[in-house]
């Protein structure tokens, strides 16, 4: 069956450290993968998009990697801050999917002082 798995347990890290979140998928062949941030009671906010032919993307303190052989994406936040505390969602998009997204369950990140 098709699955998208993210760290089910909350991730607690210290301010200034690098947070690494994992997204593993099974029985999908995504054309692209996106990462979103979601705060409680709010809609997801787009962070980064990476396509199947790209290995790595960066934006300011954010970095995402995409390994289609391992069927895995890693999302890194460097020099983390308490304001980075939120739930982070990965979402897969398929070729011809017309921007339809299939989401994982999300990982809750808490950055402590």
């Amino acid at each position, binding site marked *: 069956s098709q699955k998208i798995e993210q760290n089910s347990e909350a991730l607690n890290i210290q301010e200034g450290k690098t947070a690494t979140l994992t997204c593993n998928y099974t029985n999908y062949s995504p*054309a692209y993968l996106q990462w979103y941030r979601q705060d409680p009671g709010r809609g997801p906010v787009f962070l980064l998009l990476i396509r199947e032919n790209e290995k790595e993307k960066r934006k300011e303190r954010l970095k995402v990697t995409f390994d289609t052989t391992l069927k895995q994406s890693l999302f890194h936040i460097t020099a983390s801050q308490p304001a980075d505390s939120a739930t982070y969602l990965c979402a897969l998009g398929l070729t011809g999917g017309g921007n339809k997204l299939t989401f994982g369950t999300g990982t809750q990140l808490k950055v402590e002082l």
Partner: protein
Amino acid sequence: DAGVTQSPTHLIKTRGQQVTLRCSPKSGHDTVSWYQQALGQGPQFIFQYYEEEERQRGNFPDRFSGHQFPNYSSELNVNALLLGDSALYLCASSLIDRDLPNTEAFFGQGTRLTVV
């Protein structure tokens, strides 16, 4: 630019009732998708509208229906509400561009529906 706006923000309905949720997409966007997000879960795709037609549909029953208007705004209708329909309903807009496929989606703040 107001971004994606949804109304209402909160709604309480009784089992068996019908509900209509509304969405105005981000300026310049022509595609609207609806998602259902249960507590502690990721958003689940309900359907997508483009050029006033339903283009794709997720695994949701026919009780869930929608509409897109000429100005690209959209409605989600749910009939015969069940307790299990209680969730955050999210609208996302995007632009279908054949030269640049697979762009990001912009989400509204959602409508929190509670069925009692």
